[in-house]
């Protein structure tokens, strides 16, 4: 057993360490108080003088959890499957089916997608090198490794992009971490507008400059779709998916035209006997019923807002897809316009599928107000390579339109007036200055390599946070006072000494939290309170033992030694078992619960130390001086 000097040395060391770790928190508190009492120029100069010290203090202080200071916590999941889809080459129907299956399966778990993909390829006896990588002779294992590293790189890039965006959004002390194989945890203290955060985090920010297809061709395609839907077009097409193979697939000839139409239009087709001119038009021209071609002959179409989903579904159908040329795509306008009658319309644009230029060439973006119409815009600048390309593209397409597409939505499709050599372009049709600002951030931070989805979101407003702080503080104070009173009443002197040791408990817990840069949450405070109750336990074990020994006739000094010796095993075993559950809780919990587990574990260790070492030292100091502590 350690002797007195070692014990005292240990206590001093522990206290010193705790104070050292807690010092930044104290400093930070003092800085903030000072700052809040200064005004204007004074506060500015104060910040300048102490900037470095303030930053250091801020970095190392005990942080408050989001549930105490308010803020948002978001878990993003990177759509790895979309990524695997995008980096594949020669995507054919087989590939699409496989990807579709993997997507369905993985929607249920967090497991790694790539092994699942590899298995599917194996099942079908197809080599993965057919779709991935440059070496057609590569083994599946090689390809899997390649995909794994590409995915990891993409996820790291995604984290960087998220970090950039969050940085520019000016959140103080954000916390961004990778979780598992494809998740990102983003904690944003003090953030309130979750709509904005969603926009900020979820958009892939894929910027594309795309040319429009010739108006004549566009109109012809729309006509073909219309004819196909109304049954006038020949429905047999060669399946061009497999190279060289000629398989003919027929779209099943509808038994009744109206049945097929009903199915296509989701039950919105005109009734069998409806003979109004509107119904007739719908039957004869089902596509143009919904998509009104632009009267000016630009090749665009206008769709009423309420029909937008239906048209999207229509255009996505495989039989319709086959009528659209492979280098063409219908893209939707990002915003709806309102006509004089108050109806809302979306535009669809016939765009060339492959972009002329992408957001990779954008070197800077700045939100601003257009001098022409006073509406918000974002001005973009390109790097030298981009500027060259842009000059070439604009030069070759004068009086033609170039669509500016962000995340597959067309913001505008202005006519090229002249060749643009300065690498400048602009996004217009933005609703609000806020949106412009978000776009600016998102364009500067870069495009996400794959879409991310928000799978978990928790936000706590500042007033809830304040309530929690108050509740935590109140309950801690009351519990503390109760514990102290009880110990003194029940164990007299010994109780008072145990109370004194309890103070050290709290100091040690806070010190360890500061040392680990852990965050204090409301459940964490509950953990501290719980440890107060359990700290009593260790002291009770010791004091009850000492009482027994005294009753057995030992001297005070001897009883104390015997009490500590005999109680040690019980204290040790019981606290360790409770700590085991704390460890399990830490492993399986997230966020605030981990905060609780942490304070519980630390608190138990601290209470063991203070009960076994600190009180012992004090008792011995007392008996050395001939004072006999009263054990009630």
């Amino acid at each position, binding site marked *: 057993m350690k002797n007195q000097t070692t014990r005292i040395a240990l206590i001093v060391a522990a206290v010193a360490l705790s104070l050292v770790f807690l010092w930044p928190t104290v400093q930070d508190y003092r800085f903030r108080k000072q700052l809040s009492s200064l005004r204007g120029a004074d506060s500015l100069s104060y910040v300048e003088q102490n900037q470095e010290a303030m930053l250091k203090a801020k970095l190392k202080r005990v942080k408050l959890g989001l549930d105490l200071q308010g803020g948002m916590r978001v878990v993003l999941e990177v759509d790895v499957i979309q990524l695997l889809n995008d980096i594949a080459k020669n995507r054919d129907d087989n590939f699409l089916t496989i990807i579709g299956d993997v997507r369905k399966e993985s929607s249920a778990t967090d497991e790694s997608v790539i092994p699942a993909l590899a298995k599917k390829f194996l099942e079908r006896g197809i080599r993965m090198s057919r779709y991935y990588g440059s070496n057609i002779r590569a083994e599946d294992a090689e390809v899997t490794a390649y995909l794994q590293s590409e995915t990891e790189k993409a996820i790291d890039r995604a984290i960087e992009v998220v970090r950039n965006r969050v940085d520019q959004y000016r959140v103080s002390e954000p916390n961004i971490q990778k979780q598992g194989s494809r998740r990102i945890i983003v904690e944003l203290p003090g953030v309130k507008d979750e709509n904005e955060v969603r926009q900020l985090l979820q958009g892939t920010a894929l910027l594309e400059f795309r040319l429009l297809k010739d108006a004549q061709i566009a109109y012809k395609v729309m006509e073909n779709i219309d004819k196909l839907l109304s049954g006038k077009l020949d429905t047999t097409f060669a399946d061009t998916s497999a190279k060289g193979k000629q398989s003919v697939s027929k779209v099943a000839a509808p038994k009744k035209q109206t049945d097929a139409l009903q199915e296509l239009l989701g039950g919105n087709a005109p009734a069998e006997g409806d003979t109004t001119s509107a119904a007739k038009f719908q039957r004869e021209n089902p596509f143009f019923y919904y998509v009104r071609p632009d009267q000016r002959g630009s090749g665009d179409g206008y769709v009423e807002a309420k029909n937008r989903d239906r048209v999207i579904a229509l255009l996505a159908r495989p039989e319709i897809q086959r009528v659209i040329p492979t280098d063409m795509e219908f893209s939707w306008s990002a915003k709806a316009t309102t006509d004089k009658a108050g109806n809302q319309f979306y535009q669809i644009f016939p765009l060339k599928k492959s972009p002329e230029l992408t957001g990779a060439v954008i070197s800077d973006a700045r939100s601003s107000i257009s001098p022409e119409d006073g509406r918000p815009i974002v001005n973009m600048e390109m790097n030298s390579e981009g500027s060259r390309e842009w000059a070439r593209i604009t030069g070759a397409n004068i009086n033609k339109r170039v669509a500016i597409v962000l995340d597959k939505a067309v913001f505008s499709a202005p006519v090229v007036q002249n060749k643009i050599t300065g690498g400048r372009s602009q996004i217009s049709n933005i609703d609000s200055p806020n949106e412009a600002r978000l776009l600016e951030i998102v364009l500067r931070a870069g495009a996400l390599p794959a879409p991310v989805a928000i799978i978990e979101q928790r936000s706590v407003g500042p007033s*809830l946070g304040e309530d*929690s702080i108050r509740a935590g503080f109140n309950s801690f104070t009351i519990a503390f006072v*109760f514990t102290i009173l009880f110990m003194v009443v029940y164990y007299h002197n010994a109780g008072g000494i145990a109370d004194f040791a309890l103070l050290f408990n709290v100091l040690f817990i806070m010190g360890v939290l500061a040392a680990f840069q852990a965050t204090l949450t*409301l459940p964490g405070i*509950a953990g501290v309170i719980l440890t107060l*109750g359990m700290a009593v336990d260790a002291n009770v074990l010791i004091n009850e033992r000492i009482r027994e020994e005294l009753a057995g006739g030992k001297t005070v000094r001897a009883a104390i030694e015997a009490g500590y010796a005999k109680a040690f095993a*019980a204290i040790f*075993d019981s606290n360790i078992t*409770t700590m085991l559950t704390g460890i399990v809780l830490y492993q399986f919990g*997230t966020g605030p619960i981990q905060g609780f587990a942490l304070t519980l574990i630390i608190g138990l260790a601290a209470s063991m130390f203070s009960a076994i070492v600190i009180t012992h030292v004090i008792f011995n100091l007392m008996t050395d001086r001939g004072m006999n502590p009263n054990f009630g």
Partner: protein
Amino acid sequence: MRFFKKTVIDFIGKRNLWYFVSSAMMLVGMLSLAFKGINLGIDFRGGTEVIVAFATPPQISDVRTAMRASGLGASEIKTYGTSDNALIIRTTEQGQGSTLINRIVGSLQQGMPTNPSTLLGSSEIFPKIGKELRQNALYAIVWSFVAILLYIAIRFKFVYGLGAVIAIVHDVFTTFGFLSILDGVIPGLNLEITTEIIAAFLTLIGVSVNDTVVIFDRIRENEKIHRSLSLGEIMNKSLNETLSRTIITSGTIFVVLMVLLFFGGEVNRGFAFTMGFGILTGTYSSIYVASAIVLDWSLWSKKKS
């Protein structure tokens, strides 16, 4: 000051009675679980939860009408916290991102124009996450059993580990049953299963085991000193000797939890309530169940050999 002078209670002799009581408690709990079921929070089910504060105390029926207007009439609406002005609205519908939260806030503003509301906080969990959290919670509880069994088996004897684990299994089931019975019964107390409640379970496992181990330690010590006594007599002696300590510790923790329950804020309320009850069953099981199991198992295995 002393609560208990030297007690001589026969815990072991009457253990069949206590087996009966324990089984009855567990049975009642399981019946409630089977028929009434348990209320899973959105942590484990997936869904969206919104906390709103109104200018004046709202009528729940008004709120429901407002919600119905946007197709969310099936949402759970409960009071939140100690003030009458705050409500928590919960729906398991899966929306496209924050459109669901916007819908709720919007329909409240439209449907109750005379009582303006502000959004205090929100949570949204995908069902996928809910499933993972459920699994994690289960693993956590099972692993804690395993860890405790191993540790006690090593420090004492295997049969002691068994006794301890059976005692905490009893605690977990009884407390679950208790939550199931009381869910929705006490106004202002939300007892749906959240991650905090699971944390309460794990903690009460830890604290119950704490008591049990102290008693086992005393038994271990007494076995060495009083070699002439039978195991049952030693157990009784140990239980009586540690009774004072057990009651005091459980008592203090219980009081501390009650402080948490009333002053610790809404987030800690479910936790404090669950653990408070857990302390009661934990103390009971440490005294009446754990040692009894060890004794009967030892007798039974002695009879076999």
